[in-house]
């Protein structure tokens, strides 16, 4: 019984910092997302939901909500990467859609 209590306490202690994002982590996530979105904009491949997620991440960062800021920034990064992937694939795939 005592082993179980110790194990549960250890798990609780070690998992808490993993759940909460720090200011540094949120800022780093936002920076990475902004860089990826800048690439997408330069490639004329950006998506509006990415812009919306970046805006929310910036607002959360200003409000000191690090978890929310990091979550939104991570979502923006994923969307920006997908938009770049789409643009890259479509560079050749568009030809398959042409009516002949």
């Amino acid at each position, binding site marked *: 019984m005592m082993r179980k209590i110790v194990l549960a306490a250890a798990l609780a202690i070690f998992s808490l910092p993993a759940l909460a994002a720090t200011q540094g982590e949120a800022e780093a996530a936002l920076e990475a997302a902004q860089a990826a979105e800048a690439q997408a*904009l330069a490639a*004329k491949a950006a*998506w509006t939901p990415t812009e919306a997620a970046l805006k929310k991440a910036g607002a959360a960062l200003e409000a000191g909500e690090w978890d929310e800021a990091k979550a939104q920034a991570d979502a923006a990064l994923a969307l920006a990467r997908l938009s770049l992937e789409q643009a890259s694939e479509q560079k050749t795939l568009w030809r398959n859609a042409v*009516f*002949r």
Partner: protein
Amino acid sequence: MITTKPRHARAILRIAACVLLLAAPARASEASADKPNPEMDRKAFQAFFFAKFPRVAKDEFGNGPYAVNEGVRKQWKEIMEFPPYEFALDDGKAEWVKPFANGKHYADCFDNKGEGVRQTYPRFIRETGQVETLEGAINRCRVENGEKPLEPMTGLMASLTAVMAESSQGKPFAITIPDDPRALNAYERGKEFFYTRKGQLGVSCASCHMSPAGERMRGDILAPALGILAAMPIYRSDWGAMGTTIRRISTCSSQTRAVPLAADDEDYRNLEYFLSYMSNGIPIVGPGTRP
């Protein structure tokens, strides 16, 4: 050392000649498939729509959804008893005759004083090596005469293009692609934009305006790509205002959840060049109305 008997050498030469002869036409057809052929594209493009809508007259395609759906056509006929673009047209006519500060007019910037020329836009301009839209030509006219350019999507610009469209009604699109590799490249880039899937929804212009044309997307009837720009500029109920071609294209971008490009972006101009060329032969019906 490998030696080849004369008989074997002749056989090898014959085989090599056959391989070369068979491969040559294949390479030639690959090369011709890669080289842009706007006229061949236009014929295939138009044939697709004529086959899809056999009961729609060629001259009707400029009316978009109203050409292919009887229900919305009835509503449109009623709307056209008092066309919602009339006020904009009046504003445009007043602006058209108003002299610039230097005493010159818009008419001085265009062929035939701007009367009945809308069907020849967009144009490829040799000096810049780029495509110029009607809105671009109007703003160039203003700047060359010492005036500030107009906002290209709505307001006075839409009113001026409405005046030019009205004077061109019934004239078929007559877009030219000069024998210039830059013009062909602009056409090809426009074609690429039309068929490229974009935005989070992953759809292209063609995804909505080719095969699904005439079908419903939520409350709207999708307009056929053929003649889709012939009614521009349009009064769109959704906007509650007039808009130019570029406003409509920009709205389409947003609807696919893509970040719209700048109004005068080269990609948008090239798209308009491609789409207008595809509609060569379809009469101008603008200004128009859309839901």
